[in-house]
Every structure is written in structure tokens, then in C-alpha cells.
């Protein structure tokens, strides 16, 4: 297991390459930080003779800002579903030519069906990896406060004031991601997680404001280190990040045991998807790279290395036991049925959402 580098500085670096008429043997990839086993990229370079410039970011927002300014120079980028959905509307992606992808049949069609809600017929994307938002917890610290039979897979710990109150002193962290957290809250309240109704947003806001005093902070990556060090005892976080925190806690040997659970109330499933910007200077190489990532060995390499699931059926026999049998990474079909995707919102709703979120966070 590796460490996730918080890629603020890395996200600021950019490689802009100029294109020639005959395609250079170069490929510019822009992906999430620590999301691949470097050996997979080396194998691609050795096989094709194409040199890969691999840059990383740590938020969809950074990626989107670059793509929307135009002329990013990237050939393959990996946005999350809802972001891809809106970016397609802005016309910034090429259609992917499936005749160039020899390994496309390796994909899990159950998952690609779910993804097609973002991109009809999946014309512009090929999945990279997927995961859930769930509960990352320090078992001992939570049980100490909630009793030995605490329900560690219930969102009550996060959303019920009387329960969250008991955990406030050991620290609760929340993702600073309004669209995702609000959709989980709406689903918890029994409403449509993708609702854009003002009244629904109001109820979600009331719920979050009622528990807000018991939260320590809103942040989308700090919890990885803090959960491992005992600085916080509970977080609403991304599964792979919580599992990284778990192995970090084991490495440091301070005795913190970190667990991850998918809430029984249901939660959000997200997909990170490879796409080719319409002004990509090396589209041929981009297709070759995507096809390379669709190989069974590549998919297994990613999942075994980063602890996120891949949508590649053919990879499953090659997965390590601790990955394929981990319900936090590969949940059972029963749990899977309870997962929902979060759709792209209209600009108007985004504004209301951000405003509500700011007022939840600041109490203003």
C-alpha cells in the first residue's frame, strides 16, 4: 500500500505540449493523484514506444477549470460522472472510437449501464475506477462512546444529533463536497437524492445544520491522516481514502484500528471515467492508452494498488484476496442495489446548493 500525497503542488504543474501534424509519440495524461501503479504506465510505454507525460490533480474542480479555459493540451483526463455529464454538454469531449478498443468487452455491463445515466451509450467515456462514500471510523473510540453494540454502518452517527453529539469530543469530519453530501442526506431523509426542489434542499439543510455543531471540520482529504492518527474518530469519506488511512494507521503502529462501512441507509456510488478532450493533440495515442487500461492485468494492477474497485470483469480473477473479498471495495449485490449515482445539477441549483452549504458551514 502506498501513501497518498496531497497533490496541491502537483495539481499546479501542467505539461502543455504542442501538436505536430503527424502525431508525435507522446501522450499527456491528467489523472487523480496516486491512482495508478506506475508499472502499468511503464508497460504501456515499453509496448507502444509512446512517451507518457503523467500529471495529477486532487479535485474535479481543478480539472474542470483547466478544461473549460480551453487548450489544456491533455489527451486523457479522468473526471467523475456528474462532472463528465456537464462537461459533455459544454462540448469539450470527443466521442471515443470503440473500433479502436480491442478490450472493451472486458467491462462489467451492470456498471456501464449505471454510468450511461451520465453519458448516454457511454459515447464519451471508459471507466477507470469506482467507489462509494461511506463511514470511516475508529472502532475503539466510537464504541467507547456509543457502547459495544454501536451500529457502525448507520448514518445515524453522522446525521442524528443525539448520536453525533456523543462523538463530537473525539472528532467528526465531513467531506467538503456539497453535491455529494447533500445527496446522501436527502437519501437518508427518504427523498430523491438528485432532487432539485427547493423544499427538499431546505430539509437537507435543516438536517445538516442541526448536527453541524458536533462536526469538527469539513474537508475532503485531511481525514486520511487524521483518522490514522486519532485526531478524529469518524468521517464521511471516500472508501479508498479511508482504506488508505487504515493501512497508514497500521504502519504507524499507534494502535488505531480504522474501519470502513457502506451505510445501510444507502449511499452514493461514483465513477471516475476516462475521456478524451476534443482538442486533444494525440487522439490516436489516447485510444491506445485507454485500450491498454482495459486489459485485465491493468485493471487488476489499479485495484490491487489503490484499493478502489475497477469496472473490469476480466480483472477479477487477478485481484488480491484482500481486495476482492473486502466489502468496502467490492460490496455484495445486495448492498450494490442500495447505491445511487449523483447527476449533474443545473447552474441555478448549484448556486442554491453552494449558498446552503456555506450557511451550514458558517452558520450564516
Amino acid at each position, binding site marked *: 500500500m502506498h501513501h497518498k500525497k496531497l497533490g*496541491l*503542488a502537483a495539481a499546479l504543474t501542467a505539461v502543455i505540449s504542442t501538436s505536430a501534424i503527424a502525431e508525435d509519440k507522446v501522450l499527456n495524461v491528467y489523472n487523480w493523484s496516486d491512482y495508478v501503479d506506475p508499472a502499468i504506465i511503464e508497460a504501456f510505454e515499453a509496448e507502444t514506444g509512446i512517451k507518457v507525460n503523467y500529471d495529477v490533480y486532487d*479535485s474535479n*474542480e*481543478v480539472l*474542470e*477549470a483547466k*478544461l*473549460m*479555459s*480551453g487548450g489544456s493540451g491533455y489527451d486523457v483526463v479522468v473526471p467523475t460522472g456528474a462532472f463528465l455529464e*456537464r462537461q459533455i*454538454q*459544454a*462540448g*469539450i469531449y470527443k466521442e471515443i472510437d470503440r473500433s479502436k478498443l480491442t478490450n472493451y468487452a472486458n467491462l462489467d455491463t451492470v456498471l456501464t449501464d449505471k454510468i450511461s445515466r451520465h453519458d448516454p451509450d457511454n459515447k464519451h467515456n471508459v471507466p477507470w475506477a469506482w467507489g462509494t462514500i461511506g463511514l470511516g471510523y475508529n472502532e475503539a473510540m466510537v464504541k467507547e462512546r456509543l457502547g459495544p453494540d454501536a451500529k457502525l454502518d448507520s448514518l445515524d452517527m453522522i446525521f442524528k444529533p443525539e448520536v453525533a453529539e456523543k462523538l463530537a469530543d473525539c*472528532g467528526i469530519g465531513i467531506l*467538503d463536497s*456539497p453535491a455529494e453530501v447533500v445527496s446522501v442526506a436527502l437519501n437518508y431523509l427518504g427523498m430523491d437524492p438528485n432532487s432539485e426542489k427547493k423544499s427538499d434542499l431546505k430539509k437537507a439543510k435543516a438536517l445538516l445544520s442541526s448536527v453541524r455543531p458536533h*462536526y*469538527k*471540520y*469539513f474537508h475532503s482529504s485531511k481525514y486520511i491522516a487524521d483518522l490514522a*492518527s*486519532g*485526531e478524529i474518530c469518524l468521517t464521511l469519506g471516500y472508501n479508498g481514502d479511508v482504506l488508505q488511512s487504515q493501512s497508514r494507521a497500521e504502519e504507524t503502529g499507534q494502535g488505531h484500528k480504522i474501519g470502513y462501512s457502506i451505510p445501510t441507509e444507502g449511499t452514493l456510488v461514483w465513477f471516475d471515467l476516462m475521456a478524451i478532450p476534443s482538442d486533444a493533440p494525440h487522439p490516436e495515442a489516447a485510444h491506445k492508452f485507454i485500450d491498454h487500461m482495459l486489459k485485465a492485468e491493468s485493471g487488476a494492477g489499479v485495484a490491487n494498488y489503490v484499493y478502489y474497485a475497477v469496472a473490469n470483469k476480466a480483472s477479477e480473477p487477478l485481484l488480491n484476496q484482500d481486495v476482492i473479498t473486502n466489502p468496502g471495495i467490492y460490496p455484495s449485490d445486495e448492498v450494490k442495489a442500495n447505491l445511487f449515482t449523483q447527476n449533474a445539477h443545473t*447552474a441555478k441549483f*448549484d*448556486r442554491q*446548493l*453552494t*449558498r446552503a*452549504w*456555506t*450557511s451550514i*458551514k*458558517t*452558520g*450564516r
Partner: protein
Amino acid sequence: MSISTGSVWVDGSSSRMQRYNIFRRVNWGRFAVVAIPAFWLGIFFFIPFLVVFKISLSETAIAVPPYTPLLEWDLEEAYINLKISLGNYLYLLEDAFYLEAYLSSIKIAAISTFFTLLIAFPIAYLIARSDGSRRALLLALVILPFWTSFLLRVYAWMGFLKKNGIVNEFLLSLGIIDQPLVMLQTDFAVYLGIVYTYLPFMVLPLYSALEKMDMTLLEAAEDLGCRPAQSFFLITLPLAIPGIVAGCLLVFIPAVGEFVIPALLGGSDTLMIGRVLWDEFFLNRDWPMASAVAIVMLIVLVLPIMLIRNGQGKGEAI
């Protein structure tokens, strides 16, 4: 203020002569000296400012770039369409939240500037009164932190302030406290971060003002029966005012727009305009609105400060 234009004849009474001299004897050296910073300001401040201003007058759109064009034309249809939207500025007035964010930023920056001044003054005074090698060493110590990235130094503070961080461990082991203090993710941590980060920007201008001071003035005051505290307030402090003003501006202006320090050290309820800008830009994807927020901040902050500077410049003309 004495202005020399390169001619000893200029006395204002002979304007014909003055013009003649300016035309005949253009001082290319001075021109170059002024042109370089002017060019720099033009390229890196004025033009970007105009671009931001232009974007603030458009509307958000799902496109590349994500806002509507101000000017549309079609030569065949023979039309030019100029569309200016003031909606963003009106919205700023509509929602009291923006005003609150501006005020809260100004408050945080003002308090931080005050404490920076309070801490920096004795330091600058000490350096200015030290001699030779000791002064050089002290100055080097003030500048030394710049050798480490600012981001790393803020992260280091997180290590100090967190629940099981160095400060809490130390106080717990001494038995001064029995529960760890909550310091990180509070306004206190933001003030601390800003004061720490901007301290050199206050020390250096103060030092250069104090260093220029004529020490014989203090001796004269003493001879005339002035007590040290009195002479400090009557002589040292007034003479340090240009340094105080320069230092306060150097700290206050960047502190108002600070984003990194409140993001890393502050709590979720620390409201600053930098964060509001970030939200507008990245969460709402509303570049025009974000631009309007930035332009208003510039107007709210820079105009009064420029007026103060101007007034002060005239007041102290020697």
C-alpha cells in the same frame, strides 16, 4: 518635494523655457527606469484587471470558456451586439452574505495587522539599535524563514496546534492543562498564522524607518528633561509613522484576500472573501460572479488605501 527635471533653469516662471528643455533633453535613463515598472504593471496588473472586469459583465454559460461573450457580430447579417450584464453586481448587493464576507475578511485582516505591528515594533527597534555584525545577523534571522516554502511553514503550524500536537503534549506533560486545548480550526489559529507569516513584511519597513532616525534627537530630549517613555511617544513613534503605514499596508492588503491560511488553519465557520471567491469559481462554476466579487474587493480595499497614501504623501512632502 524637490523635482529636478534635468535642467537648472526650471523655476516655474519660464514655461516656454521649461518645455524647450524637456523636449531637448529627454532623460532616456530615467525614462527606462520608469518604463520597466510601468510596463510590468501594465502587463501583469492592468490588462488582467481589464480581463477580469470584462468577464464580470458577462453571464455564466455551459461553454468554453464558461461565460457569454460581451460582443457578438455577424458581418453578413450586419449586426453588432453588445451585451453588458450588471446582474452580478446587483446580486452582490441582494445577498447580505457577501457584505458579511467582506466585513469579516477586513476584521480578521485588521486584527492580525494590529498584532503583527505590536510584535514587529520591538523586533525592528532592537535591530535598528544593534550595531554592525549583530544587526546583520538579526536581519538575516528575519529573512531566513523565506527560504522554506510558506505552505510548509503553515503545515508546520498544524503540527504544533493539533489536538495531539507539540504544544498540547508539552502543556499536558507539565500538568498545566488536563484536557488538550482546541487550537486548530479556530479563528485563533488563523490570526496566529497570518501574524507569523506576515511578520517580516512589517519588521523590514519599520526597521528601515527606525534605522534612519537621528539619535541625537533622543539625546536632546533627554537633556531637556524628557523621560524615556515620553520621548518614545513624542519622537520615535512619530518618526516611525512612514514605516508603520508601509508595514500595515503590506500586511493588511494580502491578509484580506488570504485563502491558504484560513483554509488550512481556520475552522469551517471562518468566513473570508478568498473562500467565497473559491466557491463561486469552483463550486458554482460562475466565473462572471467570481470576477465581480474580485472587482468589488479591489474597489472596496484599494481605493480608500490609495486615498490614504495620497494624503499621506502630500502631508510628508519635504
